[in-house]
């Protein structure tokens, strides 16, 4: 398992230096992902119009759901492959690869068929109005025809990473971002394809990246490669893949559910344009959140290793660094959102109505952003030291438990503003909860440290 070496540097080198070294590739990948989303929104907003941005906003949760299925197979398969590679059980690893491929094709086809058959009722359910429906439908139709490609592309990327080729996987991601950016204006402006053009650019970029991945994965000299006889579905493997993939699936489905509810509340209190405004603010803030997630991914192995090796002072040190950098990122987001909202929204649209709503919403939504870096970093910290349940709980507080009640109960009192305030309130409440949990955790660490819990090595 290429990524499972126990690098002793994790236990010895200066924590700050380590964090940067591990976080930078992760940050690049996360930025690429958020850029991808931004570029699409910008071209759609500028090239097609304000209603198109709202239509795009309607499709987010559906894409989330599709990604949830993709993450289930991708993460589950990748984890299983790295377990099998670690056991030098290449035959089964190969078989998992084939099954991931087949599962992605089947899931992709099923999802696409359901979506294409029931497109209008689904989009209505997700908050489309007669104004936004045409855009949402045009976009989704293209995306869903290419759904199998998207699923395979993400699935193969996950496999490449677990097969010890993270750089290739990252290359594929960056490649799709660049290609998408090049094709977007071409399809939207030159070929006049409207919002369809943006969707087509997305699917085509993934298709090209997928061909490149498949070329890599059909090379028989590679340890893991696609060949005949590995594609037949084997139930024990499928069960294993799904059992691991269940958690990312649930997390992503929650994201879908929350956005679905928010979009519907926005529609009834603020109309179509507020959905577009929410989409714009989200795209902008996503950049800062993704930076934090990159930092967190860099922290994970360092915190995990040192926690395992009982070097608690290094554990707290890396957490402090991560919180520090994360807070810088989210504070930047706060400054941008509070002082320069107009500059951001202008990038996406020139429609005055939409700009007004977005400029009003952004400062409210980012009200507690300087705190949220701490919240996200700490949530991830619990995960890195193996306390997955606490981590999942904390993650859910901000995104679901504290958010949904606010989104449902604030708007009747405050109108549209209630939605924006609900987001700020949930940020604050989640931060307080996180701080309390971290406080108690640190106290028990201190106890462990003081009692000198040491390794028994009397074998």
């Amino acid at each position, binding site marked *: 398992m290429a990524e499972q070496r126990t690098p002793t540097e994790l236990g010895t080198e200066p924590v700050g230096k380590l964090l940067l070294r591990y976080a930078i590739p992760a940050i690049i990948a996360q930025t690429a992902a958020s850029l991808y989303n931004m570029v699409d929104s910008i071209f759609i907003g500028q090239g097609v119009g304000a209603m198109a941005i709202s239509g795009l906003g309607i499709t987010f949760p559906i894409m989330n759901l599709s*990604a949830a299925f993709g*993450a289930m197979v991708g993460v589950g398969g990748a984890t299983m492959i790295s377990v099998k590679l670690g056991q030098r059980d290449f035959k089964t690893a190969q078989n998992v690869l084939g099954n991931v491929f087949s599962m992605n094709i089947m899931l992709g086809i099923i999802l696409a068929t359901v979506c294409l058959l029931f497109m209008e009722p689904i989009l209505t359910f997700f908050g489309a109005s007669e104004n936004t429906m045409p855009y949402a439908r045009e976009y989704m139709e293209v995306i869903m025809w290419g759904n199998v490609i998207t699923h395979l592309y993400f699935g193969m990327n996950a496999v490449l990473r677990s097969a010890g080729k993270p750089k290739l996987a990252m290359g594929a991601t960056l490649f799709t971002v660049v290609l998408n950016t090049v094709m977007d204006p071409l399809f939207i402006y030159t070929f006049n394809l409207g919002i369809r053009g943006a969707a087509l650019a997305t699917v085509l970029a993934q298709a090209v990246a997928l061909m490149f991945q498949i070329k890599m994965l059909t090379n028989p000299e590679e340890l893991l490669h696609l060949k005949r006889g590995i594609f037949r579905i084997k139930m024990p493997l499928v069960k294993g893949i799904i059992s691991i993939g269940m958690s990312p699936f649930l997390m992503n489905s929650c994201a879908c559910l929350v956005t679905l509810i928010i979009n519907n509340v926005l529609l009834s209190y603020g109309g179509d344009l507020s959905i577009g405004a929410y989409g714009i603010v989200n795209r902008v803030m996503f950049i800062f959140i*993704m930076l934090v997630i990159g930092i967190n991914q860099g922290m994970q*192995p360092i915190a995990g290793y040192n926690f*395992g090796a009982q070097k608690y002072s290094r554990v707290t040190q890396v957490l402090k660094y991560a919180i520090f950098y994360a807070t810088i990122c989210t504070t930047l987001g706060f400054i941008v959102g509070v002082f320069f909202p107009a500059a951001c929204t202008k990038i996406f649209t020139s429609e005055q109505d939409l700009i007004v709503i977005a400029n009003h919403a952004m400062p409210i939504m980012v009200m507690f952003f300087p705190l949220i870096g701490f919240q996200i970093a700490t949530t991830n910290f619990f995960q890195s030291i193996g306390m997955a349940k606490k981590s999942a709980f904390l993650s859910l507080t901000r995104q679901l438990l504290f958010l949904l009640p606010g989104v449902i109960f604030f708007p009747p009192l405050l109108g549209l503003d209630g939605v924006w305030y609900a987001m700020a309130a949930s940020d604050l409440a989640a931060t307080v909860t996180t701080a309390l949990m971290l406080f108690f955790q640190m106290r028990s660490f201190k106890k462990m440290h003081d009692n000198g819990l040491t390794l028994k090595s009397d074998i």
Partner: protein
Amino acid sequence: MEKFVINIGRQLGSGGKRIAEQLAQELGINCYDKRLLDLAAQESGFAKELFEHSDENKGLLDNIMHMRFLFGTTSGESFCSNVLSEESLFQFQSEAIRKCAEKESCIFVGRCADYILRDHPHCLNIFIAADESDRIKHVSERKGISLKEAEKLLKKAENTRRNYYNFYTGKTWGASESYDLCINISRLGYDKSFDIVLNFVKEFLAGVQ
């Protein structure tokens, strides 16, 4: 004599562990069960407690909660693996088992050793079973709990043990094709069963020499 390994899989409360220990004594070799966790801890440099927590445990709830991605990262990009994940701890434990089997002839109890050492040239896989009623009785005596409690405990423990084995090996726990000898202790009693296992092992070792 060449190095050999005996892997003993067992149902909870079947007496498999006792057989393993007695066999080790008889053959003058080491028997590793929970002690494997010490080896794994040494191999990784991690605290033993971490291994105890995930020892032969692969619960469904843990799986569901075992989220690897923060909410919102739909791209599924993750560059750094979590060294404390169950899969990673299993990896350390397998390395420890392999190193141990390279160094000496020994007996391993459980922990998927039969799968981990599947390429070992002189490897014997034995599965010890017993009737459920006997196993419940054993567990209740050993833990000093009522039969009902023992039954519940047994069901739960068997379930996690089965999940653990099936997940990591891709095989079915306790299925006869994974073993060279499967024996139900309840038929002939402990002593006679032990003799049979011992004779089986001795015949096997005669072939190894």
